[in-house]
């Protein structure tokens, strides 16, 4: 909402020493937030005068452009009284027109210095100005400002005419303070902000009483339209210009001047906050009716759009059919035009929720709709209509008709009873009950003091937002001042700290960062493109997503089921920006659709029952945190110490193992073939019989699709499950300090026997004396044959209570080998 300071001051006598800054500070503290103070003419200095174009010669140029060589009478402003020669490229003016001229020595916004200069074969001494060049809002023509004939004389300083020096305050108005979408409301707040100032309510005026002479109106839906006021005028001159003060104020408020009649209704809306609609009375046929539309009915609104209506929409009709979408937008058929001579003025009160729904349904956003849907003072319909009549008579030569139509009554404000100490109790400020009463009266409420410290408060008609006790508290506290709220820490918080899960999630992040991985955060939006890049089959369950009804991009219309897409893209982005290698991790919340259908909507007057809550929670899609890792390109740098190294499947698995060790979760791996991994280099990671995820080298096609080097590796794990398996506490280890006995064995096995199988067999066979077993070499050769490999294991034995004898160690080793032979066909090489 933009409000010229002079307009505010028309209704409130602010002390002379109150600057615009002081005013906006006070209003901001009261809840009308300052957005900006605009001062027209800022950045303009020097001679800016009215001129009259005497001659205008059109001179075509080689480049096809036509320029105007003008002589302009600028009175004595140029010191000589001689006409000023000026080149101008615009064509929306001609000889005889009055224009705005800046003379040499002047400066325009942006420090644009004006001087006499040679151009197009003339000396151009100054500039004929457009609105944009003066930093003013453009009227849409992008042309030169043509000053009306009754404007100031040539040679006069143009500043007063242009409204320079006038400050306009732009406020951000919160939805609950719709009354401040008017000068009436803003001035009232200004009066509230400076004690002892006088406020004059522009909506407080004597209006003629309703009579039977008015235009016939019937309201069928008094809920949707509790009050409908109609007035008429005759003999209006549609060609009469809008007075200068009104055009200027409308422009300052951010509205364009359209025609006198429309300008007057807008002006009164800004003045009082009450939207007004004007009809060409000669186009009306018979009685005006207000009713709900029937489903599917159609009409053309005055923006030319054909609209199909819903049974919830409120419409204004006459004998011809629908003539307006009540409170939202008028219809085309009864629109005022340049031939209108008789006008019907509608000032009606509309039910806000209806207004909101209709505006939303038909995607109509208008100044009138904005006010009607937030709530307008219902008691000022007659005053506002009367004010419009007054202005039509004053500026359009119309005659006010005697008939006054008033159908219905303004709804009354509710009365709220509160304990007078409630504001003090809730704010923590010491507000005596008497002050509470005084402050509520100051905002215009009717306060009746009851028994036992209660007060019955009836909100003023312009405050439909005041319905609850806490609403009144806000009013009292904002007048006392939000800056008066003391700063006190609550003392009773008795929390138990972070949960185990929260602690472990941090630990996972630190472990990964500590091993050289960098965390990224990606958007979770995906589309088919992601699944193609990841190589997921058509029936892959990861393609079953939660879809968005209104995605930002049609290419990514779903919520992701995997961390990998965003992560691999981030890796590709880094490599594209010159990184030689990246090691990234991300924790992404992923989701799959719920099977239990639509989520219920309950009332809000009570807590849902346990069953209702269970149904609510069940309808929410299953969501969990997936941890992703990608290792692409250089993993260890080369340098003076030797060559660098790229990461592969083994680093991916090492990362998984490091994490599992950190969390104390025992995991097993087995080979798997799952996209987006290389089918021969992918491990399924499990804990017991729970699958946690996969790790390994990425499929070559996937590397290509994301712009990653060959052999890049990745991990995707269900982090929530992994963390849930972490033991609450680790039991302290027990170990022997007796000497260790070492035995190394080399076992020849078939090439397809896994190390894990051989190791498990060795462990099983070695018995209790085995302390550790570790593979330290894998050997293949032509001599062994392509279908064989030799695995070298280091076995370490130790007893709890004694030094092992050579015989004991050898027996344990032999037992281990024997078991390996039995289970895996291993042969010991000697």
């Amino acid at each position, binding site marked *: 909402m933009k409000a010229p300071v002079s307009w505010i001051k028309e209704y409130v006598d602010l002390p002379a020493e109150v600057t615009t800054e002081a005013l906006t500070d006070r209003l901001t503290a009261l809840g009308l937030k300052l957005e900006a103070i605009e001062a027209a003419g800022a950045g303009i200095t020097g001679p800016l005068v009215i001129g009259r174009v005497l001659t205008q010669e059109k001179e075509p140029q080689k480049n096809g452009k036509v320029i105007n060589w003008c002589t302009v009478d600028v009175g004595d402003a140029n010191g000589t009284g001689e006409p000023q020669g000026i080149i101008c490229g615009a064509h929306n003016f001609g000889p005889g027109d009055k224009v705005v001229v800046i003379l040499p020595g002047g400066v325009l916004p942006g420090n644009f210095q004006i001087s006499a200069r040679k151009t197009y074969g003339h000396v151009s001494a100054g500039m004929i100005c457009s609105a944009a060049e003066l930093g003013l809002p453009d009227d849409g023509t992008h042309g030169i400002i043509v000053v009306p004939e009754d404007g100031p004389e040539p040679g006069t300083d143009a500043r007063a005419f242009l409204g320079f020096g006038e400050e306009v305050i732009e406020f951000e108005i919160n939805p609950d303070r719709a009354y401040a979408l008017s000068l009436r409301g803003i001035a009232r707040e200004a009066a509230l902000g400076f004690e002892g100032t006088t406020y004059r309510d522009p909506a407080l005026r004597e209006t003629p009483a309703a009579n039977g002479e008015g235009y016939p109106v019937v309201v069928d839906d008094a809920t949707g339209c509790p009050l409908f006021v109609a007035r008429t005028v005759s003999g209006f001159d549609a060609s009469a210009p809008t007075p200068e003060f009104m055009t200027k104020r409308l422009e300052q408020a951010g509205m364009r001047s359209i025609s006198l009649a429309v300008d007057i209704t807008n002006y009164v809306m800004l003045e009082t906050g009450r939207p007004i609609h004007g009809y060409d009375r000669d186009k009306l046929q018979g009685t005006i009716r207000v009713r709900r539309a029937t489903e599917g009915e159609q009409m053309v609104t005055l923006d030319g759009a054909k609209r199909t209506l819903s049974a919830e929409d409120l419409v204004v009709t006459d004998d011809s059919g629908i003539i307006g979408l009540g409170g939202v937008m008028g219809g085309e058929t009864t629109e005022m035009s340049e031939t209108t001579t008789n006008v019907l003025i509608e000032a009606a009160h509309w039910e806000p929720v209806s207004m909101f729904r209709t505006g939303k349904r038909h995607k109509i956003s208008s100044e009138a709709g904005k006010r009607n849907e937030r709530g307008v003072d219902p008691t000022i319909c007659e005053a506002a209509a009367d004010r419009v009549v007054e202005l039509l008579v004053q500026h359009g030569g119309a005659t006010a008709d005697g008939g006054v139509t008033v159908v219905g009554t303004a709804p009354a404000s509710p009365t709220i009873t509160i304990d007078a100490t409630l504001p003090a*109790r809730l704010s923590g400020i010491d507000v005596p009950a008497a002050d509470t009463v005084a402050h509520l009266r100051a905002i215009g409420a009717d306060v009746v003091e009851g028994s036992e410290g209660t007060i019955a408060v009836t909100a003023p008609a312009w405050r439909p937002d005041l319905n609850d006790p806490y609403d009144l508290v806000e009013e009292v506290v904002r007048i006392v001042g*939000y800056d008066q709220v003391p*700063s006190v820490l609550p003392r*009773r918080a008795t929390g138990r700290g972070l949960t185990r899960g929260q602690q472990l999630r941090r630990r996972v992040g630190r472990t990964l960062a500590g091993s*050289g991985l960098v965390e990224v955060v*990606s958007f979770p939006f995906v589309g088919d493109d992601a699944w193609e890049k990841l190589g997921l089959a058509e029936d892959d369950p990861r393609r079953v997503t939660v879809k968005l009804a209104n995605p930002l991009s049609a290419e990514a219309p779903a919520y992701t089921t995997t961390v990998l897409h965003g992560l691999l893209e981030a890796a590709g982005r880094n490599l594209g920006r010159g990184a030689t290698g990246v090691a990234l991790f991300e924790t992404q919340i992923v989701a799959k659709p719920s099977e239990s259908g639509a989520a219920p909507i309950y009332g809000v007057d009570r807590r849902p029952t346990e069953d209702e809550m269970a149904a609510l929670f069940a309808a929410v*899609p299953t969501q969990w945190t997936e941890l992703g890792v990608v290792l692409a390109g250089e993993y260890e740098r080369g340098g003076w110490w030797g060559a660098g190294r790229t990461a592969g499947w083994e680093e991916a698995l090492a990362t998984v193992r490091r994490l599992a060790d950190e969390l104390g979760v025992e995991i097993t791996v087995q080979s798997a073939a799952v996209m987006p991994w290389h089918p021969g280099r992918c491990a399924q990671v499990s804990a017991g019989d729970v699958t946690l995820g996969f790790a390994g080298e990425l499929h070559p096609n996937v590397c290509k699709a994301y712009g990653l080097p060959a052999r890049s590796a990745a991990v995707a794990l269900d982090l929530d499950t992994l963390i849930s398996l972490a033991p609450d506490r680790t039991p302290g280890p027990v170990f022997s300090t007796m000497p260790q006995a070492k035995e190394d064995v080399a076992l020849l096995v078939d090439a397809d026997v896994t190390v894990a199988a051989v190791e498990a067999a060795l462990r099983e066979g070695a018995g209790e004396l085995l302390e550790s077993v570790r593979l330290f070499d894998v050997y293949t050769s032509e001599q062994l044959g392509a279908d064989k490999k030799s695995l070298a294991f280091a076995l370490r034995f130790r007893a709890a209570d004694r030094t092992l004898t050579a015989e004991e160690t050898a027996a344990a080793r032999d037992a281990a080998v024997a078991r390996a032979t039995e289970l895996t066909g291993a042969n010991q090489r000697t």
Partner: protein
Amino acid sequence: MSGPNSDYDPVEVTPLKAEEVEAARDAALAAIAAAADLEQLKTVRLDHVGDRSPLALANREIGALPPAARKEAGARVGQARGAVNKALGERQAVLETEHEARILVEEAVDVTLPVDRRPAGGRHPLTTGAELIADIFVAMGWEVAEGPVIEAEWLNFDALNLGPDHPARTMQDTFWTDPAENHLVLRTHTSPVQARTMLSRGVSEDAPIYVVCPGRVFRTDEYDATHSPMFHQVEGLAIDKGITMAHLKGTLDHFAGQMFGEGINTRFRPSYFPFTEPSAEVDLVCFVCRGTGLNDAGTDPCRTCRGEGWIEWGGCGMVNPRVLRACGIDADTYSGFAFGMGIERTLMFRHGLEDLRTLFEGDVRFTTAFGSEL
């Protein structure tokens, strides 16, 4: 290095003459002093105190002397040998020290060689920022609550007094899941976590609610330097007996001071949020100009706060009793406050970030700059 000394043929020696013993001692001491390194000293030791050295032979001869002469000869040889051994020990210590020092000198390296074999990792500032904020509240006895990002419409809106006709529910702001009749949204704020906390925990005299909810939220904003369809919020909720706006102010002042530095307080301005009443915008004293609104030179407006001395930080207020009612809390007995801030916005101020998008691009140069903790 000296070779075996052929002048000393032990067979020819008549060892027990005093001058000969002294001569042998002096020769040994001179050789010890002359040994330049441990190797030479080893040879000297062999020559002068070894089994075949003059003093060793002399010692062996003592037993053959007449008893009257034994005592004197014994004392003479013993003293000589003692002096030589002492000198040997001392020289050994000196040479060992020199040797060790020389090795350390020889082993010196160029410590300016690069040692960046493995590049450093790092955690994302959105993660560590949320942790930093959580820790400030956990230190005050609050708990950290979490909830799903795809949320029931009722929890995201209705329960929070955002009725079906509230402007914030129009398609422009909210991502709805398809079909919209399923009443599921990508949560537009972390407030549904507050609703879930109240609904599932309730509140009692012994168990008041003090929770902070950091999390990821979504709005259908186009992606640019200051807007993102996905961003992060932290919200707080306190429900207890006798909670007032003063407690809200105290909590936010403490939070601001911890986050931005001692003395950085907050200011409340009246505002409107459906879930709170009274509601306030929270401004932060500009931590660059510390509220003066001027740059360092005092000549131009401060760039961070554009001369206002204050920075908009978030919203807050007393929990609307309508919210308490829908979430099963007796508004006559309990009152509460709630607040919410953008984590991105908070980090942009705290670390002077210019473009929101740097947080979501995944460029490692951005993340590693922050290390593992903020």
